[in-house]
């Protein structure tokens, strides 16, 4: 039994027990890094494998195209395009719903289903009920999120206005679709399951409702393996152009999939940046503790060598200590990470809807996290272990020379008391170590600020989008263009204070070989309810002459003020023209472009119709207005700004709260780990000095000042640098979110700096209190009798 564990390993176990405070502090930092890595990699792997399985099993299409109207026979011509595997023509329209108990109007996207058979592409994952049957034109299948939000069950009915006609629809099935993993109303950013629905109706019923008998207005394709999507899209666009095709997109640009992939990319970014910080700090702490242990064990090392232990055996002994600490951290991190990964994946499933969820992080994230952490720990231990291995036995048996201090390059100001001198000289004597402690604390502040910054940035984003740019309360879109008379009708509706038309035209921008598919927004001169808003300069007047481009779009097209941009209209008469860029505007959401509405109409040669109207509404009259709008048969979609903001804040608020909670724990572990180890090492190195001072008549408070004063000074510096670190981390994260859809502004409110500093400081104070307790229980005589 006694020989089962080798003597050196027995020493290792005792060392671990003796150093348990420090061991746990380091293990927590490692665990935080590992947990973060597993959470993000695991969530990433799970969501990706779920999405892939979902897309595969339910035949998610590869290419999507919209058009105005094409006869069914065109489908055969589409099928002849080389590289196409399957073609599914459809009708996709918008309608408004009147759901009992919901004051605000509900917008629905209605997609046709072949009666009696399953669709060849974008199949439905039925949660309950069945598909629609032929000869029953009022049957619908509804999306599960909407059904859950309203408690709608199979057999329930509600009214819908389809192209001006009120119909009562019966729910026969509840389903999810790979096309609507992230289901958002046109123009919105976040799913709002209460006010946006996806419905599926029989093809014949929908064709009858929208006058599309024998025709279709939407097509999706799957491609043969190895087919070039851009070639297929080019041919498809040519084929559909006469039928009002607005340009096909491949799966990568399909809106739901785009959001999902974007989220996956962000998870990947997070899995790289944050764990790196934690593991680097853990490596430093391992080095700190091991170096100290080895310097206190010089004579033991000498003794072991005198007994005949080899350099390698000594090196392995101390390396094992680092590995043991790290292994503890890895195990804790594995447990926390798999829990957080599962939780996080489930949290994602509230926004991204899948019929099934594979939480299958696989062994890869666990293995990667373990290997990276062990490498970091060994890297941190390397220097200390090498010193132990190369210590000559005779020298190791002699006590080390007293630590050499000299009058340094940085003079200590005169007039300071000697306790403060001790503190300052000690910091200056080990500048690298001091700097690392400062860095560790700075990262703790930074990580916390990073989490808090999201709230600041999103608040600014919401304010910019919903307050500065969109100043209306409700925006209504008509099913078809209406005459200008409709503006007066709108103004006379109850509660409406002002009404202003807006025109959105689908176009392709071109400059040289660069192009972008987007929208030009036509605003009336002097528009007040929707304006061009520059993040820096504020409201920009609608120019008479040319185009205002969002700076992100200008960047993509590589144009600036004065440069011409080719515009190819993708609807109506499909005009092509060139307009100069007048100026740029910095926007956070999308890549918008604006023109004067009249000039846009002249260039597109469209009639003076109105497609969308923005309304300013007296809040007191809102319910009456909703009731009036629900009765109108000509509306396709109604967007209520207040509801969008509420939904955005609710969703983001929850996510931010959860993540800030996680990050508070992680940052706390970081701050605690760094501070505790710094103070404990300080105590170990200077226990003798402190005991001497106690003997000389210093009080406990006075010697605590010397020990913890050093730590406090370093922590204070760390807190100050942390503000800069937080800013820099936020800048890196924000730049990784710079997508075509949105940019996150780099905004850090004073409260974010404050909370970051306070959070990290609390953890530091806690660890200092623990060390102070040790100072209080120090045995003066025992310390003085030992010779270093």
């Amino acid at each position, binding site marked *: 039994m006694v020989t089962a564990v080798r003597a050196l390993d027995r020493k290792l176990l005792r060392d671990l027990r003796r150093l348990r405070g420090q061991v746990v502090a380091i293990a927590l930092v490692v665990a935080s890094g590992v947990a973060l890595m597993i959470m993000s990699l695991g969530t990433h792997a799970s969501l990706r494998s779920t999405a892939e399985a979902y897309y595969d099993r339910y035949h998610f299409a590869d290419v999507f195209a919209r058009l105005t109207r094409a006869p069914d026979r065109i489908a055969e011509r589409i099928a002849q395009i080389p590289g196409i595997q399957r073609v599914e023509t459809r009708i996709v329209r918008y309608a408004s719903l009147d759901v009992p108990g919901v004051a605000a109007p509900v917008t629905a996207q209605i997609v046709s289903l072949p009666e009696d058979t399953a669709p060849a592409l974008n199949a439905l994952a039925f949660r309950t009920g069945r598909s629609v049957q032929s000869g029953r034109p009022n049957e619908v299948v509804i999306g599960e999120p909407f059904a859950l939000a309203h408690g709608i069950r199979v057999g329930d009915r509600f009214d819908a206005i389809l192209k001006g006609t009120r119909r009562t629809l019966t729910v026969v099935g509840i389903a999810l679709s790979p096309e609507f993993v992230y289901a958002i109303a046109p123009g919105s950013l976040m799913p709002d399951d209460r006010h946006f629905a996806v419905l599926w109706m029989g093809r014949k019923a929908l064709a009858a409702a929208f006058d599309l008998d024998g025709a279709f207005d939407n097509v999706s394709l799957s491609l043969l393996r190895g087919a070039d999507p851009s070639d297929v899209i080019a041919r498809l666009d040519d084929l559909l152009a006469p039928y009002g095709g607005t340009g096909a997109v491949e799966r990568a640009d399909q809106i739901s999939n785009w959001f999902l992939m974007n989220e996956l990319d962000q998870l990947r970014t997070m899995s790289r940046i944050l764990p790196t910080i934690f593991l680097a700090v853990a490596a430093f702490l391992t080095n700190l503790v091991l170096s100290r242990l080895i310097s206190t064990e010089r004579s033991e090392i000498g003794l072991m060598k005198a007994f005949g232990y080899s350099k390698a055996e000594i090196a392995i002994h101390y390396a094992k200590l680092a590995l043991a600490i790290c292994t503890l951290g890895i195990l804790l991190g594995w447990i926390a990470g798999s829990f957080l990964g599962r939780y996080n994946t489930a949290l994602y499933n509230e926004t991204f809807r899948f019929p099934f969820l594979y939480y299958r992080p696989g062994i890869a994230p666990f293995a990667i996290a373990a290997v990276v952490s062990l490498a970091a720990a060994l890297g941190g231990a390397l220097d200390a272990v090498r010193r132990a291995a190369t210590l000559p036995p005779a020298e190791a048996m002699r006590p080390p*020379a*007293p*630590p*050499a*201090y*000299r*009058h340094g390059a940085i003079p200590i100001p005169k007039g300071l*008391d*000697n*306790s403060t*001198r*001790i503190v300052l*000289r*000690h910091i200056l*004597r080990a500048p690298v170590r001091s700097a690392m402690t400062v860095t560790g604390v700075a990262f703790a502040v930074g990580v916390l600020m990073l989490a808090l910054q999201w709230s600041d940035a999103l608040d600014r984003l919401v304010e910019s989008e919903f307050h500065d740019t969109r100043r209306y309360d409700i925006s209504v879109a008509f099913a078809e263009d209406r005459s200008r008379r409709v503006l007066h009708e709108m103004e006379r509706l109850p509660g409406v204070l002002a009404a202003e038309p807006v025109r959105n035209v689908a176009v392709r921008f071109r400059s040289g070989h660069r192009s972008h598919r987007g929208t030009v927004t036509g605003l009336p001169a002097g528009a007040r309810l929707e304006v061009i808003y520059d993040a820096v300069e504020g409201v920009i007047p609608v120019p008479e002459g040319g185009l205002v481009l969002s700076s992100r779009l200008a960047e993509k097209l590589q144009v600036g003020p004065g440069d011409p941009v080719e515009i190819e209209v993708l609807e109506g008469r499909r005009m092509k023209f060139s307009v100069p860029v007048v100026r740029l505007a910095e926007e956070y959401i999308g890549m918008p472009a604006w023109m004067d509405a009249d000039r846009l109409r002249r260039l597109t040669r469209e009639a003076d119709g109105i497609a969308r109207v923005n309304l300013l509404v007296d809040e007191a009259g809102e319910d009456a207005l909703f009731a009036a709008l629900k009765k109108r048969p000509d509306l396709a979609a109604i967007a209520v700004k207040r509801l969008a903001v509420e939904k955005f804040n609710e969703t983001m608020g929850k996510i931010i709260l959860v993540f800030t909670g996680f990050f508070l724990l992680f940052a706390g572990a970081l701050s605690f780990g760094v501070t505790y180890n710094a103070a404990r090492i300080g105590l170990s190195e200077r226990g*003798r*000095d402190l005991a*001497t*001072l*106690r*003997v*000389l*008549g*210093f*009080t*406990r408070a*006075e010697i605590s000042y010397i020990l913890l004063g050093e730590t406090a000074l370093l922590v204070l510096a760390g807190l100050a640098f942390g503000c800069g670190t937080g800013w820099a981390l936020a800048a890196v994260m924000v730049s990784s979110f710079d997508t075509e859809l949105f940019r996150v502004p780099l905004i850090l409110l004073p409260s974010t700096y404050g909370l970051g500093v306070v959070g990290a400081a609390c953890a530091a104070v806690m660890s200092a209190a623990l060390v102070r307790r040790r100072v209080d229980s120090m045995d*003066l*005589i025992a310390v*003085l009798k030992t*010779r270093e």
Partner: protein
Amino acid sequence: MTGRSPGTADVSLETRGLTMVYRSGAVEVRALSDVDLQLKRSELVVLLGPSGSGKSTLLNILGGLDAPTSGQVFFDGREITAFSDRELTRYRRDHVGFVFQFYNLIPSLTAEENVALVTEIARNAMPPRDALDLVGLTARADHFPAELSGGEQQRVAIARAIAKRPEILLCDEPTGALDSTTGVLVLEAIDRINRELGTTTALITHNVGIADMADRVISLADGRIAEMRVNERKRRPAELSW
């Protein structure tokens, strides 16, 4: 100025029935047994004895570093064995100077700063330079411990101990880590302090030769006072050899 001769001076420190028992595991170690002792003002006492005889334990209790298992210690008539931790700190701060075998200087402070460390918190301290002058180290005032020899470090430790003009100076093997030539310099410093400042001094050594510089020699064995004798002729440290 010479120290007052023993027997005629007032008592500075007194112990009554001092007993100290350490318990380590099942073993009971009796470090001191019923020790009665008086140290008179300005007296220089050498405590002699082999290791384990209890002399360090006695010194630690006299200095307020340790509490006895039973018995009492009086300083100027006040019972320090009844002091709280705060009062003991105050006692060490204002009345006691310590010199250790391993100097215990603060490595991050210069010689002068090490002395100032004490003068900053004491009530009636002399300027640090004056204390260094007493041990003959004014020239080395700006040096850090790592830049000083062992003997110099010990003299700085003595200057640090006496700079607050303590009533009592307790020295635990002050020459233990030094060769005899350097040791003499250190003892001369202690002797000079005793003579010039009238500090009651207790000096532990296991070196019989050093005992000749004392007013009184107390020998300890097995935690008891084995012998107490008054030196008829005190010798100067320079005359000592060991």
